[in-house]
């Protein structure tokens, strides 16, 4: 849809002088240091251009000067809301390049951590989306529960945000005593809370008005732009790398893939993307319960950690499902202890590129809701 068509469809014919407006980089609703250059016609967006790079640290250049294990803390800092998932996928990429097998117990611990982190990240996304649309209260609820997950991480590895927990060939610490019990207690506590969020925010009349039918992303556009994760599933495409391109031990668990159904409006609107996240938390709880029940009792988590990490010459592209979508690592190895080239394909970078396509033709206040539904993290967009 062209700009003028979109405007006419949504608001009829409007004629006013165009104005260029800068939003960000220091703006609370841009989820970090994102600058949006907006051309508005009255209050309607006729063109939008995201400017990124304010948080650029040249992660990829750093990696060329670090050994493979030294890169892990840097992946923490790329997507700081989903550090465990970043560790996990990076480590799996290097292990695949090396052809390394890890003990069963390690695989289970990694999946438990990755799914806990997915819930924590979605809690942040759900709360922040509420905040973007004017609901101040929900984020205090989601933060309260996210805190309990961070406590579990702190109990396991000492860190609350940037863990460096998943190592090549293993994990840094074995699970502490009674972890399974504490994690199960958390899940029992958490499951009824999802109902609470739904009553508080999901089915709130104001929230629905602000997000349903807003920023509709058609399925073919989503695929062509390479959108992934909840943004793609919100458009009604049944696609999750944990099931469609299984890695680690995800093929052993039973879980559903929630997709957007257009329950409140059109398939692929902001509300659908939001609700996919809420339902994904339920699915993560399912995976966690299965993983905690089947966790092998014995096994040294340090047993398979190699003394020297020197992958053979070659290149690999490995991808996995991070809370924001498809996180991929393209690694070229020249046989030395440092990567020759390491590229991180970050899901938020690709999901943000679709933003100007779906935000055009909407009002200024709506783009905040659309941006909130994309759930971007500037740390991994700018890298």
């Amino acid at each position, binding site marked *: 849809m062209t700009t003028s068509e979109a405007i006419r469809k949504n608001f009829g014919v409007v004629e006013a002088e165009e104005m260029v407006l800068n939003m960000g980089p220091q703006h609370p609703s841009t989820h970090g240091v994102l600058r949006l250059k907006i051309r508005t016609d009255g209050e309607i967006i006729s063109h939008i251009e995201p400017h990124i*790079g304010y948080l650029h640290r040249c992660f990829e250049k750093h990696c060329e000067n670090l050994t493979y294990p030294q890169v892990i803390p840097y992946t923490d800092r790329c997507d700081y809301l989903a550090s465990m998932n970043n560790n996990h996928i990076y480590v799996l990429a290097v292990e695949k390049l090396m052809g390394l097998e890890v003990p069963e117990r390690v695989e289970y611990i990694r999946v438990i951590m990755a799914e806990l982190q997915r819930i924590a990240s979605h809690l942040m996304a759900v709360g922040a989306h509420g905040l973007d649309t004017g609901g101040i209260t929900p984020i205090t609820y989601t933060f309260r529960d996210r805190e309990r997950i961070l406590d579990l991480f702190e109990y396991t590895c000492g860190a609350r945000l940037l863990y460096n927990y998943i190592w090549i060939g293993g994990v840094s610490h074995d699970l502490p005593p009674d972890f399974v019990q504490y994690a199960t207690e958390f899940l029992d506590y958490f499951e009824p809370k999802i109902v609470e969020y739904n009553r508080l925010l999901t089915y709130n009349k104001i929230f629905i008005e602000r997000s349903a039918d807003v920023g509709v992303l058609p399925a073919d556009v989503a695929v062509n732009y390479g959108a992934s994760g909840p943004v793609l599933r919100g458009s009604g495409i049944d696609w999750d790398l944990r099931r469609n391109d299984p890695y680690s031990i995800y093929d052993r668990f039973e879980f559903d893939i929630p997709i957007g159904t257009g329950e409140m409006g059109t398939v692929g609107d902001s509300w659908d993307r939001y609700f996919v996240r809420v339902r994904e938390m339920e699915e993560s709880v399912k995976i966690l319960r299965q993983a905690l029940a089947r966790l092998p009792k014995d096994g040294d988590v340090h047993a398979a950690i190699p003394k020297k990490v020197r992958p053979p010459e070659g290149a690999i592209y490995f991808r996995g499902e991070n809370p924001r979508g498809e996180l991929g690592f393209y690694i070229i190895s020249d046989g030395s202890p440092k990567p020759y080239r390491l*590229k991180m394909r970050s899901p938020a*970078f690709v999901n943000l590129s679709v933003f100007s396509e779906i935000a055009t033709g909407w009002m200024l206040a709506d783009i905040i809701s659309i941006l909130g539904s994309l759930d971007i993290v500037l740390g991994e967009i700018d890298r």
Partner: protein
Amino acid sequence: MEFPEIVKQIEAAFPEAAVSVDDTAGCILIASENWLAVAEYLKTDPGTAFDALMCLTGYDRGPEGVLGAAYNLYSMEHAHKLEVRIETPRDDSTIPSVAHIWRTADWHEREVYDMFGITFDGHPDLRRMLLPDDWEGHPLRKDYQIPDFFHGIPVPKDKRGWE
């Protein structure tokens, strides 16, 4: 389709396109001038149907070597993968843009241009992606020298204290 079949199909449709085929890595090197036609074919042919571009990576084969770009394609319909590589000489590096075929390539090509200085012919808006517009050089090239000054501000190179 498996990798050898895809390669066979490409070679049948474009007899001179494939420069080399690496079976172990599952990647095919295609001549730069044929890339646009091959890309359109890979996307639209019902047998290959590569509708998703997973990743686009620029790389540098060393100060004397070539620059290149690796395209990781995926077909959501057939669930098969293909890695295509395009290489281009260092002093006059140009690759045809595929941003109109896969929109994913739009920002990724800008990023590769930013970091490696490869020009993508036919890109709708080829500007720097992550670095400031007035940045000099392309940092991920292997022969990149860290500048002494940026806008008159000295760039610290002394690593004492943190290494």
